[in-house]
């Protein structure tokens, strides 16, 4: 578990990084081009406003009293989701989805394997029936589908 102040600090660090990245980028884009306001103007103004707020949140996370600690299960679930997302383009929709759902239900919902398999197969089949067959979404179902 990561404490509530750390939750705010992680979010604030993200905002700070975003402000720095976009702020630096806006200088490269330029504030004026051929006498007219340039594409870097609004990003620069916005970054300049965001920087001190992100800094304040980073230094004083207690100003967000509703913050909660980060728990292990959702973070682990995010890692599993990321792997699933990375495998999808190579493995097609069906097989990675069934494996992912079985893993998800067993690991994060603590359900028996048999129930997890039934749910995973039903959901994958339902999604294929609704989106692929009925609505015509050309989602590659298997690794050999383009």
């Amino acid at each position: 578990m990561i404490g509530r102040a750390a939750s705010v600090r992680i979010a604030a660090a993200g905002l700070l990084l975003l402000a720095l990245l976009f702020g630096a980028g806006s200088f490269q884009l330029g504030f004026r081009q051929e006498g007219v306001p340039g594409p870097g103007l609004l990003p620069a103004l916005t970054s300049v406003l965001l920087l001190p707020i992100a800094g304040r949140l980073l230094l004083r996370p207690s100003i967000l009293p509703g913050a909660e600690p980060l728990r292990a299960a959702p973070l682990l679930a995010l890692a599993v989701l990321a792997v699933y997302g990375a495998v999808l383009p190579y493995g097609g929709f069906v097989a990675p989805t069934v494996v992912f759902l079985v893993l998800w239900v067993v690991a994060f919902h603590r359900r028996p394997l048999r129930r997890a398999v039934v749910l995973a197969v039903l959901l994958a089949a339902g999604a294929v029936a609704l989106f692929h067959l009925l609505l015509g979404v050309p989602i590659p179902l298997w690794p050999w589908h383009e």
Partner: protein
Amino acid sequence: MTEALQQLAYGFSLAIQPANLVYAFVGALLGTFIGVLPGLGPLTTIAVLLPLTYQVGDPLGALIMLASIYYGAMYGGSTTSILLNVPGEAASVITCIDGYEMAKQGRAGPALAIAAIGSFLAGTVAVLALTFVGPAFARFALTFGPPEYFALATFGLALASTLTGGPPLAGVAMALTGILLGLVGIDTVTGVDRFAFGVLQLTNGIELVPMLMGLFGLGEILYNLERRGAASLLTNRIGRLTPTRRDWQESGGAMARGSVIGFLIGLIPGGGAILAALLSYTVERRLSRNPEAFGKGAIAGVAGPESANNAGATSAFVPLLTLGLPGNAVTAVLFAALLIQNVQPGPLLLQQHPDIFWGVIASMYVGNTMLLVLNLPLVGLWVQLLRVPFWVLGPSVLVVAVVGAYSLRNAWFDVGVLIVSGAVGYLLRKAALEPSPLVMAFILADVLDTSLRQALLMGDGNPLIIVSRPLSGVILALTVIVLGLQLVAFRRGVLLETAPDPQEPA
């Protein structure tokens, strides 16, 4: 007035076409179906179901379906508020207070019925008003120039970011983040690539729909992974639905006042349903002969906020359709849906696409009626849906979100956007940063950027043009006042005191 009625009749001729009636029915049914599932609010519902509307080729049909999903999801949100004490969205927090108390006393039936009837009446009143106010707004908006648009968008963002109930600073941070993310992609004025960092798929900007599904849908699922079993269904049987004569007497005035309050607040870009519901609740408590009953199951505490909520949801279509400025996160999604259908909301919409404008308004009447007819008899079914266990619900939403994200451009990249946004949504939620202002700002970033640069061009580079023009000057002054008042109010703890905690009824 006659012209508006003629146009409305034209809208009805479109809305009651069999295909559009089917879209309205399917939208209302699906919206309620998903909206009633615990933990899925209207925004998540719309975001998850949005890809379904791509399959509807006709823009009017797609928008009718989306609007019906919206109303259905709002009603679904009320059901979870009353029976589970889980607000589907921020505005439903107010319904939780007395609705849940009524359910605890075995009066869930009248609470659900009054919520449905109040929503129907308020929606109808708001649609009637919209019929006449909408065209007037559109005519007025034609006089707006870039400085006025910049000022209005800034005003809307200021309101949206400070009315989240949390510290104004957090809302402002989210709005600024939304602006930055909304600027990714090719600059429409110069054609320069902005912040795409060499990623080809980002040159058209970050796709809104997978971002929304991630921020709200996936973020919600991840958040709920650690909160299993937190909510409990109070009642197996709803019992008698019909409100008593006393219920009617106590609710009638509240519904009427809630409709007016909701309609007026919804007209303001960024006004928001939570402000409408909160204001209505405060008014009802002040006007009541029995104010101590509020927080203990007063039916007026359900009727007023629910009516205000629904009227506000309808009148939020006024700034969306006539100014091209979404008033809240949900209308921001509808804005994106219109753009996907190649329809540009704004003052010219009425002239260029009268079929869309009047068809949608007429379909709101149809949708409201359909919801009432659908919801009261099916309330038993909705209650059963509240029992869907989270281990079935979460994975189902995940699968729909993944295929939905892919179907947008038939690209796996958007599934990546979905997952990254889900991680961001979870983190923001844990850090008590409300993502709605981010979404609004993301959508308004282009309007802000273009109008700021056009205004500066008009003023030969002098930013004072925005302040010196009467209308934009007044709007900017209002923005400063609103921000200042919110900051002061927050420092004094006023917001924290007035925003009730659903778990701790007042």
